[in-house]
């Protein structure tokens, strides 16, 4: 059974905002990195999964049920909102106790453990806290009732690198316990490291979606080749017109299946030095982002 299922979901907020015809699924134990620029519709998607917002068209299913206003579904979800908004008049600790009691969590042991892990001093009033500290409070709220599914909207925003690492460790622990997770992010490295699957959203539409290893294949290979002579470089660049030539040095980006051909051909022209790397997820993402202008 799919834990998350979106079938052709459209939510139109007008002026191109919202999500349009998004379909995706996430199986139990899976991790989906949900990537996209600001305003692409990541938060709108998550709000529909939470049952805060109803789609105009299509169907949303979480644990096989319509999440809209469903208390049973909420019980199984740990939610981190994209905006950290709290009641202003409470301290961090009082708020954590309040959220725990709302969720019917009797023991504060887990919350205390998380508080130590994130080095949170919860004695201050929430409105006096820095962005990062408030984010820690929000994270603890999402994790304290040991849910089965996590929906985390930009979980590391505002966290310093050390806390980002602590968060990554926490996520890995939860995943090893078989939890399912959807994580929206701008941090490509984070998604690359933590998520088995990724979906890229652009202007409310899915631009790419798949297993991380498949996306890995979809990434272009970027060559930088220094030939023995400038003539060799010039001759080689006639075969690959997209190559950029500077003297004997040449840079070239090709789809992954063409990589072997580039290598074979380069050798015949006489290679002095060679440097290859895979396009990062970020570059892949920017590539989808850029198409907007194209």
């Amino acid at each position: 059974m799919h834990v998350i299922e979106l079938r052709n979901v459209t939510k139109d907020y007008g002026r191109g905002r919202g999500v349009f015809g998004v379909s995706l699924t996430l199986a139990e134990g899976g991790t989906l990195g949900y990537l996209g620029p600001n305003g692409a519709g990541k938060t709108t998607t998550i709000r529909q999964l939470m049952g805060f917002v109803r789609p105009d068209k299509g169907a949303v299913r979480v644990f096989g049920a319509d999440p809209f206003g469903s208390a049973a579904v909420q019980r199984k979800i740990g939610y981190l909102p994209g905006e950290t908004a709290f009641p202003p008049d409470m301290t961090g600790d009082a708020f954590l106790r309040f959220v725990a009691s709302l969720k019917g969590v009797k023991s504060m042991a887990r919350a205390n453990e998380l508080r130590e892990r994130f080095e949170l001093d919860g004695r201050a009033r929430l409105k006096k806290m820095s962005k990062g500290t408030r984010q820690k409070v929000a994270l603890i709220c999402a994790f304290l009732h040991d849910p089965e599914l996590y929906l985390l909207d930009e979980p590391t925003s505002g966290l310093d690198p050390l806390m980002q690492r602590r968060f990554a460790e926490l996520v890995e622990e939860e995943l090893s316990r078989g939890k399912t997770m959807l994580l929206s992010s701008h941090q490509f490295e984070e998604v690359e490291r933590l998520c088995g699957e990724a979906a890229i959203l652009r202007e409310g539409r899915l631009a790419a979606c798949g297993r991380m290893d498949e996306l890995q294949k979809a990434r272009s290979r970027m060559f930088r080749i220094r030939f023995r002579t400038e003539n060799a470089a010039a001759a080689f660049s006639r075969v690959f017109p997209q190559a950029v030539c500077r003297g004997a040095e040449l840079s070239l980006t090709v789809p992954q299946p063409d990589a072997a051909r580039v290598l074979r051909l380069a050798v015949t022209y006489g290679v002095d030095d060679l440097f290859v790397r895979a396009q990062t997820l970020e570059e892949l993402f920017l590539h989808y982002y850029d198409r907007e202008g194209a």
Partner: protein
Amino acid sequence: MVRPLFFRSLRSSAGLFGIILAVLALYGGTIIAMYDPDLGESLNMMANAMPELFAAFGMAGTPATLTDFLVNYLYGFLLIAFPMLLSILLAKRLVASYVDTGSVAYLLASPHARAALIATQAAVHLLACAASIAVFFAGCTVCCEAMFPGELDPEALGRVTLGLWALHLFLGGVVFASACVFNDAKYSVGVGTALVVAFFLVRMACQVSDAFEWLQYLTPMTLFAQDELAAGTGGVWQSCTLAGTGLALYLAGGAVFCRKDIPA
């Protein structure tokens, strides 16, 4: 009903409740102390000198008894305005602010149905308004007995107080429904407040002079017939209408809250 939310809402309403009650006690006590069967004459003279001003604040006629005096001087303005203010501020705090800032996410993400969450907030809202009136009535009765033994007709004042409660059920329903229907504080607080303040101002205007009497048909507050209730000659069906409409507004607001999109 969601117990943790109920107690948290009670706690966060307590401050406002205390302030409003303190103001009511202060003004109420002063007004009661001003009552003097002999001083009634000079007050009448004042009222005759500037009848419009007195009338605007619901102080019309010549109060003969302590009960009439209180109904005129307290139930015409003070006891409408301050519980109404409490109603507006609590609707903002209990519903509108949560939705406007997005902190409602933590309520919605808890394993409770929306209906239970909003019913809890409605219960606190209703309770606070009813309690402010009940506590005032109790204090007022005790105060009157202490200062002017035997002068007060508690039954008559009780009838007017029930009528007042009905009026506040209606006003509370308006501001609570508004807080439930809209997401943006500009509207969720603004629409309800604008409506009840307009009702109130129209009521004040139509008390000023007979020339404005036609205005009474523009404000539901006319259904609070304090003089008839005090005299025991009527005003009951009007009060029932107010209370019934008010409760219906609470229910309608809650129903919208359960069905609407909430960006959180």
